[in-house]
């Protein structure tokens, strides 16, 4: 099933969105122009994986001499620092560690999308603004721009 996340312009490079698809929470990342989607549930203890720090791979053959290179596509769970590859969901803390679910992401033009796509709901913290909704709702209008969309495959 294809799920539309947002317009591609709404997820610029080095930003992320955490969206809800049904009961699942999924993090969608734009890393250096490449899109990745990964479950927002750390398989270790269920931590909110996708709010964690992104890093590149660090390589060292000699103590004290470290090379950090490549795109920053490893996300660290904020609870224990366990890291996962955004592309594969693979943790790399040893051969027997469990991976996390990764999803295919693509950018598709609006015209190419069929009508049966689902729409992800962006998750926002209810206390993000800290303000009570007021009594009035001003009239708003739908604005639509023909553009490319970020779509994840569930």
């Amino acid at each position: 099933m294809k799920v539309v996340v947002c317009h591609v312009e709404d997820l610029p490079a080095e930003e992320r969105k955490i969206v809800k698809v049904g009961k699942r929470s999924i993090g969608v990342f734009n890393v250096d122009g490449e899109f990745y989607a990964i479950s927002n549930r750390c398989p270790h203890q269920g931590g909110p994986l996708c709010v964690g720090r992104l890093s590149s791979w660090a390589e060292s053959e000699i103590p004290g001499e470290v090379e950090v290179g490549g795109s920053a596509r490893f996300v660290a769970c904020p609870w224990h620092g366990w890291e996962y590859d955004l592309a594969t969901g693979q943790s790399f803390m040893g051969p027997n560690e469990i991976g996390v679910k990764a999803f295919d992401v693509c950018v598709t033009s609006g015209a190419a999308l069929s009508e049966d796509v689902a729409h992800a709901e962006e998750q926002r913290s209810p206390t993000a603004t800290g303000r009570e909704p007021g009594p009035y709702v001003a009239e708003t209008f739908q604005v639509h721009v023909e553009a490319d969309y970020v779509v994840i495959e569930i």
Partner: protein
Amino acid sequence: MTAMTLTAAVDCDLHVAPSSLGTVLPYLDEYWRSYIEDSTVGLSHPGYPLGAATTGGTPPSSYDELAPVLNAANPHRAILTCLALDGVHRNPYYAAAMARAVNDWVREEFLVRDERLRAGIAVSPLDIPAAVQEVERLADDGRFAQILLPVRGDVPYGNRLYHPLYAVAQEHGFPIALHAWGRGGKAPSMTGVTATYLEDYSSNAQIAQVQMMSLVAEGVFTRFPQLKVVFMECGFSWLPPQLWRFDKDWKGVWREVPWVKERPSDYVRRHMRFTTEPAQLPQDPHQIAQVVEMVGPELLMYASDYPHQHGDGFERLLAALSDEDAESVLRGTAAAFYGDLIA
């Protein structure tokens, strides 16, 4: 209990010690003989107060004293440990001179007289270039099997300061043997010197834990992939929780030490061994078997630790081992670990 006797065993830690500085004076030059006379340095070692039950008496100070001990157990090989240079001092030149003297004394008094004997090359952490020189001086002798350092160093043993010594150890295949205690006056705790021998005696395991983590975390085995380390007289039953914690924390903070490419416990299991005295174990044989399974019997190497007395833990350990594991602990693991050095 295993059917195997100690006859085929490798005893990795058998103590000898000069009875007085006079014993090693012939191996020192005139300057150091007068230094010893003037400075009142001594051999007294706080790790083994002579009246304490754990000390078990005086180590042999001559081959005539050692021979009955050796003949009673009659091991295939026994590796002598002489800690005499770790007295109460901080003079690196004295330490280096004493290392040479002690090693020469051990060679002339014991090693040349009995083919069953090997010894650790005693070196001081006070002067690593001097330690490297001492190892190179004795490397081709053929009767030395490891490099002996006190587990209480001046800086944790992963530090780059020690790496030249690890390079020469790896080159010659010598394991680094970290033996309980250290120079007189070395605090057994980061928080300072203890008030009692009880605390001091009980502290070797926690010091070994610090050194074990330092060696792995500072990348010693990445830089020296053939290096081997044996912890002597520091216990081993503390390993399971310590290794679990070490692995667990590494998963979260590995970026600090990207040269640690495998789980820390993988390095420990590949590069490190632990001698069987003291065997700090529960009484219940089933619980002993559980501890041994968690530690891994392949990490353990037999040591009589004569003359020191740590209780009957080793007998209980042996009783809990399968015949195959007992053979490994008594002989096989040491034979593989030391290789040609004890062949």
